[in-house]
């Protein structure tokens, strides 16, 4: 009787494990895969760095950056990423370190489907996994380099394993505990296959703040190929050109932005500044007045630009 009870409870326990446990994204991807997704893909050329103790963050990032043709070793990344007290690296710092090395850091939507599409498009994906439980977390970064829908498998470069193969369900359990955190590191001029417009442009502008303007500019231009009317990307092309002292290109970019977005203070304000720097003061004042007339949160900047241009104009007239 006791044995039967024990058996019953084991049965209930196992039933509960299978029933309570669910991997909705795996079910979705295997059950109704997107027509655009190949059955399998593997990025064999992604290099492998075996991690030292607790160094999964630097190792994972080094692998993806090298895949993006940015030569860097885990040792270089360690001081930028590793927090000795926590035996690990923070997610935001993974993104920030990527930018410091001149790549665009883009956090993917929390979707297995998106991740697989990135692999199929040739981009390895850094994921954060919790290898244990919510109440006993063992956090771990790894690089997903492949998948096989027919065998329901995910292929990773992980820890000391050059080619780790996980059942897709196991992978989803460990990945879901980080709320499906995933990022890609991309070389200048490249856009993720699954990029969402606003988030991607925000990622490029974060790169623009700290990298050389050429890198950000080529990525803005690629973004405009995909989303031709995006205001931030248009302004980004103009601002990077302005920083590179290419005033002609900056003017063209700002004019296009002003034409597509006639209510953008930034477009008219930056156009005014670019014209003034070419000593074309009348056109500059006209653009600056337009910027001021639009109001909004940037209106103070616009007023300062206008005042500055008028002063410079007067000064140049006095000289003549």
């Amino acid at each position, binding site marked *: 009787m006791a044995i039967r009870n024990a058996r019953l409870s084991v049965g209930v326990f196992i039933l509960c494990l299978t029933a309570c446990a669910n991997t909705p994204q795996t079910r979705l991807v295997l059950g109704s895969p997107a027509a655009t997704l190949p059955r399998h893909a593997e990025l064999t050329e992604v290099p492998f760095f075996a991690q030292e103790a607790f160094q999964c963050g630097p190792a994972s990032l080094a692998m993806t950056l090298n895949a993006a043709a940015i030569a860097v070793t885990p040792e270089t990344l360690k001081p930028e990423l590793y927090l000795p007290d926590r035996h690990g690296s923070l997610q935001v710092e993974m993104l920030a370190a990527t930018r410091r090395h001149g790549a665009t850091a883009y956090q993917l939507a929390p979707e297995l489907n998106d991740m697989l599409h990135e692999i199929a498009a040739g981009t390895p994906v850094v994921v954060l996994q919790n290898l244990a439980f919510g109440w006993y977390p063992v956090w771990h970064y790894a690089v997903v380099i492949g998948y096989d829908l027919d065998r329901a498998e995910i292929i990773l470069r992980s820890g000391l394993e050059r080619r780790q193969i996980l059942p897709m369900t196991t992978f989803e359990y460990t990945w879901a505990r980080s709320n499906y955190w995933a990022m890609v590191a991309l070389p200048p001029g490249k856009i993720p296959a699954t990029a969402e417009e*606003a988030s991607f*442009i*925000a990622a490029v*502008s*974060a790169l*623009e*703040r700290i990298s050389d303007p050429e890198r950000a500019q080529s990525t803005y231009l690629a973004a405009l190929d995909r989303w031709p009317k995006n*205001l*931030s990307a248009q*302004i*980004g092309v103009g*601002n990077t050109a*302005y920083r590179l002292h290419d005033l002609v290109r900056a003017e063209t970019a700002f004019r296009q932005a002003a034409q597509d977005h006639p209510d*953008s*203070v*930034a477009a008219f*304000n*930056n156009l*005014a*500044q670019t014209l*003034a720097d070419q000593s074309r003061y009348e056109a500059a004042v006209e653009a600056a007045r337009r910027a001021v007339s639009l109001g909004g*949160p*940037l209106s103070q*900047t616009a007023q*300062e*630009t206008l005042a*500055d*241009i008028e002063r410079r104009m007067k000064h140049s007239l006095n000289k003549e």
Partner: protein
Amino acid sequence: MTQQYSRFMRWTSRMLMASMLAMSLPLQSASAGIVETDQVVSHELAGQDRARISAFLEREDVLARLQQQGVSAGEAQARVSALTDEEAHNIAGKLDQLPAGGESILGILLTIFIILLITDILGLTKVFSFTRSVR
């Protein structure tokens, strides 16, 4: 010795001040007059956040609960357009964490959240740090 030392210090500090001033001048004039890209980006993102909050307040279940509580949809919507960029972003972030409907406990939590959000906005309560009352 001390006098010499202090003269040396005065000289150094003057040189430092002059060189720092010289360094700051060209930097300022280079960036003056240009609106940075990330300013444009954050403004665009805030527009999306606002649209998401408005869409949330237009949902039928949300509208019904608002009406039960005697808050008109117009009042709530008028306030959404007055949110600053940062506030809109905060609220949109909270909305993401909300359960997507459902009844019982989730429903009650949702109701409490909406009511507190609206009463915060009307200036009757102050639960959320990101709200700013109309009054």
